[in-house]
């Protein structure tokens, strides 16, 4: 038996999703290697392989985590989710109060012994989605009730998003809409969802007001700058213009791997603007393929929901997928100047530490759910 077919038989769950993970990982290696050129010159004396190695190690570790979370029965997360959420909230408060500041945003905490930085919002996203999924599942029979179902769900959402927003508004908004999406799919009354949306806007308004008093913690100025440059300049701000040049340079088929010029110019070409680099090197074809992979993921989850019986599993899978695909779309939309500049990486593809690892864990949980649904379907067939 060849290794390939052995892996194939070992890996249960949705094989299309496995394939998506594998292809995204390959895309990631290719584009990160190309995009880290200038970073390699800056930090490693031109040793471009250094970043490739680092990224490969993190990606390998991430895929291992994917496999581990995949093997774990997802029901365990159900029980753990309240504790995870409490831990996440504590970490968020700690980060805001005294976390490490990188790129003038307070999003990270330093893990003492190992010395790596840890973006707490990555963990909080996962914890919140698990918790919301659990709550939707727990209250599914009376989900349209305001007091019993709606309130217990929205309070943690507002709290977590409110804590993430000061330093990382885009993540908070993304997470907020992910939860809205979950509640929408979880049959919460539409009026309540509109109410929650309203509350979210109120919270945002409060943050801006607070920003007057805590300019160091709440980055109101950044938000307004980015917003106004997006609104006023039809060509887009400085970064966006270069992203556009990159996309245009790529044409239909791209300039070929490693031949990006704009990577030298775009800020964080290995993360925020990696989609533009993919376009430059692999053209519209490459851009479309990348986009299609995420959309395919969404289709697979939709089909999974049609099969799933258990509300928690389905909700977890839906939540994580909305988050991943939503983040992917948001990242791409920045490069094509559809939305203002955000700092969101392209999940699985961008170079990153904790964000890559948590993306991998998310995929593991999705796969775990899909494995369960699959075995269930098999059993039903057997019966």
């Amino acid at each position, binding site marked *: 038996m060849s290794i390939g077919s052995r892996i194939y038989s070992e890996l249960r769950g949705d094989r299309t999703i496995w394939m998506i993970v594998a292809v995204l990982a390959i895309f990631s290696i290719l584009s990160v290697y190309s995009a880290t050129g200038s970073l390699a010159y*800056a930090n490693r004396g031109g040793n471009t392989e250094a970043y490739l190695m680092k990224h490969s190690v993190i990606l390998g570790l991430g895929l291992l985590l994917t496999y581990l979370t995949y093997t774990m029965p997802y029901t365990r997360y159900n029980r753990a989710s309240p504790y995870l959420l409490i831990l996440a909230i504590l970490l968020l408060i700690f980060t805001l109060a005294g976390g490490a500041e990188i790129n003038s945003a307070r999003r990270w905490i330093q893990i003492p012994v190992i010395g790596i930085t840890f973006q707490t919002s990555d963990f909080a996203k996962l914890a919140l989605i698990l918790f919301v999924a659990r709550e939707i599942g727990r209250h599914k029979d009376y989900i349209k009730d305001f007091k019993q179902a709606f309130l217990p769900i929205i309070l943690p959402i507002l709290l977590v998003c409110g804590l993430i927003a000061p330093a990382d508004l885009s993540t908070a908004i993304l997470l907020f809409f992910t939860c809205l999406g979950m509640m929408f799919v979880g049959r919460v009354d539409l009026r309540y969802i509109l109410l929650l949306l309203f509350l979210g806007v109120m919270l945002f308004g409060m943050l801006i007001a607070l920003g007057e008093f805590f300019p160091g913690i709440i980055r109101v100025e950044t938000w307004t700058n980015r917003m106004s440059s997006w609104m006023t300049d039809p060509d887009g701000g400085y970064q966006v213009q270069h992203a556009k040049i990159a996309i245009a340079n790529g044409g239909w088929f791209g300039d070929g791997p490693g031949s990006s010029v704009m990577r030298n110019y775009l800020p964080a070409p290995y993360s925020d603007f990696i989609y533009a680099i993919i376009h430059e090197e692999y053209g519209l074809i490459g851009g479309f393929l990348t986009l299609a992979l995420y959309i395919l993921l969404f289709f697979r989850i939709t089909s999974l929901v049609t099969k799933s019986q258990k509300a928690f599993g389905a909700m977890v899978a839906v939540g994580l997928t909305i988050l991943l695909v939503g983040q992917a779309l948001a990242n791409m939309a920045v490069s094509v100047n559809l939305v203002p500049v955000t700092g969101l990486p392209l999940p699985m593809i961008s170079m990153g530490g904790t964000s890559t690892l948590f993306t991998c864990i998310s995929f593991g949980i999705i796969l775990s759910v899909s494995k369960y649904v699959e075995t269930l379907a098999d059993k039903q067939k057997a019966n």
Partner: protein
Amino acid sequence: MTIKNEVLIRMYTVLVFVVVFALFIFVRAIRISVTEGEIWRERGKEKYVQVRSIEADRGNILAADGSLLATSLPFFDIAFDPNSSGMAPGDFDKHIDSLAYCISTFVDPSLTEGAYKDYLDSLREAGKQYVRIKSNASFEEMLKIQEFPLFNQGQYRGGFIATPKYRRDRPFGLLAHRTIGYVREGSKPVGLEGYFDETLAGEAGQQLMIRVDDGLWKPINDLAKIEPRSGKDIVTTIDVDLQDITEQALYSAVLDHEADHGVAILMEVETGAIRAIANIGKTRDGDLWETYNHAVGSATEPGSTFKLASIMALLEGGYVNLEDSLDLEKGKTAFYEETMLDASAHMLDSTSVRRAFEISSNVGIAKLVQQHFGDGEKAEEYVNLIRSFHLDQPTGIEIQGEAIPYVKEPYSQDDSWSGTTLPWMSIGYEVMITPLQLLAFYNAVANGGIMVKPYLVSEVQEYGQTLEQFPIQVLSKKIASKKTIAQARELLEGVVLNGTARGYRTEKYNFAGKTGTAQLNYQRLKDRTRVGGYQASFAGYFPAENPKYSCIVLISNPRKGGIYGSDVALPVFRGIADNVFLSRPDMFPVLNDMPKGVLASNKMPDQDVGRWSDFEQALTALNVPYDPGSPAEFGVLLTDSVSLNIERRTIPEDRVPNVVGMGLRDALYILENRGLKVEVSGYGKVRQQSIKPGTRLRGQTIRLRLG
């Protein structure tokens, strides 16, 4: 509706939303890449990323002694990229305070530290990639700014951008300005800079650069970078001191005589190396400046200095002897009804050829030439002799735009050769030549008939290593017979001893040469109206017996203080020659050239006190006989009329010793060993000590005066 259906419908709604949004993204991408593609690609190519050339460091122009005549000083435009892609996360925020402090303290005090921080913060936020910190910073300033916090992490991590530029600098200011020349965009290259442009320029490098906001370019670290190759240095023959002397002398002459311009060239006889070349002219504003290289670029009618060529042609053809008698017709004659006058009135009828030359008689020389070359086809022989003196050839000096001499083709209609051409040509009219070309001819006479090519550049160097050497070039091994040359030199010496130049004779050394006073824009009008001014010149060499340097001085259109070469140009020649002698003691004959007696010098070290062994060593090494006496630790040198003796000197152990006459090393050794503190002033040997010898030792401070 079942629960499952409701979930599914809602899920499909989200799916549709996602797909629509994805379509939006893709359509947008197509729009950017295809519809607007050309626009963006153009922007990318032309405005944002380009392979641009990096200026190479231009080579130096060195004087003969290696001092810099022209060099390229690097200076820098220093900028900061607050959004450098390589800036490590957090570094900006960590260092911005101290960086702002450094900039506001050391570079630009117009903004406070806090204001600078806000400024940089706002630019970083705005995505700027190029913030000008300092323009035209010197190399030292650049090094200092480079050490600022954050900047010290380099271009990619620290966002520090230093773009080198080069400015041409002349450490000696205007010295040899025009000869050194320049290369400027939009104007013709001038001088050595122009002639050796390719050697000096080096090769520009290439680097991928991106445009930043305000039309500035920032280099991208790229493997395809081609380093610029620095230009090579050229070593000129210019002697800085002699050049300075020459310019000074010429400058004051042009100023005093209110002349249009002046030229002076000083050349080494044997090699043709030009040691000094000066051109002083008047600018439109009336200031004096090196405006044009007349020495090389202007061919004019030389006037009387050309008579040397004529007399040499007569001598070489064997037509005259120096002592032949000649009728000068009291300084006035006519050729074909054209009157020729001698420059200054005299009443000489009959005199010798030698005398006619010495007093620079136009009539005399013209009559001789007309007499011997005026018949039939003989003018051709005269012109051919002139040509054999290379007077019709450019020298090939390494300066662009050398004028070509104009010597008329005999009997040529095109050159409007007429019956009066030959006599006038013989005295330096109807012929055009540059000062340098004429000097080369005089130099050949001084050099025993060997004509060497005048040159300004002796070698090309790179990093102090010689790459190419330009050897002495002999243009003609013999421009005339030995006898002719010897007679020519005799005549030129005669001009100084008895002739037109005798007013500036000196006892200190002998020089030889010929004066010239030419009418500018000479027109032999019927009414004898003189158009234009005069050109005063003197060409010659020194010392007359063993010529080392040849020199020509030419002053155009003097308006004040005389018009004659002897009054206007000769003093400059003398000024230059005097100073050359002052700076070259080896050119004086040695008066007491005989072996010196051992004790002939008055500077014997009488009464010097020092270590016995040191004296022995020094005197032995210098081969000075001395009487060693009986050795001790210290001794004193005593000189009498016949011998040098070392006498024993005892230094008391318990009393302040006498150290007068000692060197400081010995005095310190002795005094400090006896517990005294020593203060010293002056240089040389101990002259005075502040404590009397024989005083009891108590660890006092003793002051020594050296002298």
